[in-house]
Each structure stands twice: as C-alpha cells, then as structure tokens.
C-alpha cells in the first residue's frame, strides 16, 4: 500500500499552525491563547515527525520529545502566571493586563 506523501503532512501542519496563529491574534482570554500556542507547537511536532519519517532519521522524533518536555514546563509556568494575575487583578482579560506599560 503506498504511503501518504510527506508533503500532505507538511501542508496539514502549516494549516494547523496558521489556525493557531489566528487564535493567538484574536482571542482575549489568555488561557485560550495558551491553548492556541499548544496547537502551534503540535503542528510543528507533526512536521518534525513527517520529516523524520521522510528522511529516515531519528532526529524528528527526538525533537518532538524535547518539544513535549518543554511544553509541559511552559504550561506549568504559564498557568501559574495566569493564576497569580487573576489573584491580584481579579480579571484575566488580556487587554486589562497592562501594568508593565506604566
């Protein structure tokens, strides 16, 4: 059975990345923005795996493992920051979190 061409996976990865990017640009809720960043990371993972399979090299999967570990650390820190902001400002609307402006 012929396999699915690598370019298809790369195209899907690009589309998913773009959708994630739109989400980061238009959403006002930092938690949803965070989810969109996760989606973008996942899109990149997809292209890593597809390229790794294409060239018959383990590097694709290695990079995905590192991306996942770093994503886990990033989520822990990021959600911690969101909870801390919510405690002090009682809001998580990203337009009102502007203390660093002054």
């Amino acid at each position, binding site marked *: 059975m012929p396999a699915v061409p690598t370019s298809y996976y790369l195209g899907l990865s690009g589309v998913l990345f773009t959708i994630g990017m739109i989400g980061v640009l238009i959403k006002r809720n930092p938690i949803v923005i965070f989810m969109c960043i996760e989606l973008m990371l996942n899109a990149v993972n997809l292209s890593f795996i597809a390229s790794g399979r294409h060239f018959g090299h383990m590097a694709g999967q290695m990079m995905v*493992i590192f991306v*996942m*570990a770093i994503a*886990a*650390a990033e*989520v*822990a*820190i990021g*959600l*911690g920051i969101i*909870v801390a902001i919510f405690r002090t400002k009682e809001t998580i609307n990203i337009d009102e979190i502007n203390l660093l402006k002054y």
Partner: protein
Amino acid sequence: MIIPQHVGPIDMVAVIPYIAIICVLAFVLLLVPGLVWIERVVVALIQDRLGPNRVGPRGLLQSIADGVKLFFKEDILPANVDKMVYYLAPVLVIVPALAAGAAIPFSIVKIRLDSGVVEPIPMVVGNVNIGILFILALTSLQVYGIVLAGWASNNKYSLIGGLRSSAQVISYELAMSLAILCGVFICHSLNLVDIVNHQGGYWFGIIPKWNVFQFYGLGAVATIIYLIAMTAETNRAPFDLPEAESELVAGFHTEYSSMKFAIFFMGEYASMLVVSGIATALWFGGWQPLFPFLAFIPGWIWFIGKLMTFIMIYIWVRATLPRLRYDALMSLGWKKLLPMALVVLFLVALVDTLQTPSQPVGSHVAQGHLAASMVIGESQR
C-alpha cells in the same frame, strides 16, 4: 489442550483477537451486576448487616432489578447545563475503561499450526508492543469524564467533586506510572504479553517468578505503591473524595439520573476491573499458575481468580477504612508515595544494571523522563 489451526473453514490464529474482543466486552459488561451484588453482600457481611435478600434467592437478582429500575427512570436534564458536555461525560467515563481492556492479555492457548509446530498464542485483543503505555494513555483520559460531568452539571457540589477528582487522579497517576515503570524495568519490555511470559518459571521449583517477588523485595514495594495508587485512580474508598456522600451529596454524578447514572456506575466498576487486570498481568503473573503442580488449571481461570482477589481487596478496604481528609490524601500522594516510588525506581534500575552489565540501561529510562515531565505539569496545582 491443543487446538488445531484450522477448525473447519476457520483459521483459529486469525479468529483469536475477535474472540478476545467478545470475551473482554462480555466479561466487563456482564460482570458488573454480579460485582455490585458481591460488593453489597460482602460489605454487609463485614458490617454485620443482612444485605440484599429480597429479590431472588439470597438477593441475587437485586442488581438486575436495580438495572431495570434505572432503565425506566425519568431522564432529567438540569436547568442551564451545557448539553454537549453533559451528554459527553458518561461516554468519556466508560469508553477509555473498555478500550484499555484491549491490551490486557488474559490467557494463552496452544495452537498446532499447519506446519505441525505447537505455538502458544496469547488471548489478547491487540498485542501491541507499547501495551503499558497504551493503557496509561487511556486511563489518563478517564479523568475527563469526571471533571466534565462535575462542570457540566451546573451544581456547586458536582463542581467540587470534579475538581477534587482531577487533582486526585493526576496526583496519583505519577506514583502509579513510576510503579508500573518498575515492572517494565524488571521485564525489559512494555508489551504485556512479554511481561507475563517473563514471569513464568519458579525458584526452587515452588516460588513463582512473579514480578511481585522479584528484585529482593523491591517488586513487592512497587506492587504496594501500585495497589494504593490504583485505588485512588478509580476513586474508590478510602479515596472516594470526589463522591463523598456526606459532604458533596454524590459529587460529580449528583445531577445524573437514569441510564446516564448507570453508565457512571458501570464505568467505575469497569475501570476497577481494568486496573486489577493490569495489576494481575504486571505483578502477579497473569495467567501463570501459582504452583507448578497446579498447571493443569487453564490460564484464564488463574487470571480471573487473581482479578477477583483484587476486587475482593477493594471491597474489603472499602468496608474497613474510613475516608481520608483531603489534605491527608494530597500529602500521602505527593510527600510519601511519589518519593517512595522514585527511590524504588532508582533501586530497581540499579539492581537491573548490576545484574546485566552488558544491557544498555537507557531504553526504558525515556519514560522516567516522561513521568518527570508529568510531575512538572501537575506541580502547578
């Protein structure tokens, strides 16, 4: 008993996974009423009560009567709920539990191939080489059903139950994964069939080489950690805080009635059966007989016997121990079980390296790393 490969037009080797699917589904779904009856009878016995004794001989038909009652009850939808999530939650409770059963091997059959060779074929739906990871992935999905049920019910008790459950499950999953990794280290495989096969044989012809007896007692410590964590994972007493009836009415399923409630109930028992099945396959030798002279008893009877032992332990613990306070639950999970599991994992790896110096240590450490990344993810709480 040796079965020939071709019985009439049927190729037995190809048919075995389908037989296994039917066995797993029928076993889990049909056993649940029986388990409910057993639980009620045993708890009544321990607490010196009568227990079910009205419907049928010795109350045997009680569960069926309950099922019929639930089936005909009115299906109530609370006001202002998120309907999609509300209906999705019971499905998310039962599907991962049933799907996880697919990777648990429960017996072995000897088949004489057409070439004349007798080949032992494991009875398992999918003999995947990442069996343990597959099961871990599915059990980690089970928390969604409970969390979403609590959130979608639009009820403060349910929400607290759901929150408690998510915190509890992700806390104990770490200890559970690390304990499972000890078993993986002992057997050098993630495939449950290989793990069970590895546990065949006896020391001095009498002590079975099960993982629980392996590695100078380390296997036993890991087993105990696993058993505690599995009780917490399935939200059973003394860790049943998500549904603590004295404080939260019934926790996450307060607002569910009729068959949706029955599905939550079935999901709880199905996941009990699945984690007991993992314990059996991983620590207690799966279908391997206890003593060599008992080998004439078929493997599936051994498997079900061990499984039912764990179910009885569940019931016994439920009837004996009082419910933990929430902070005690968290400190047990994070401050006692997790460090203990890490130390045991380290010692198991050390012993393994000393025993087989030529063996590269690395191939399974990757998952230790994975577990560490999960520690991070949840430490945020």
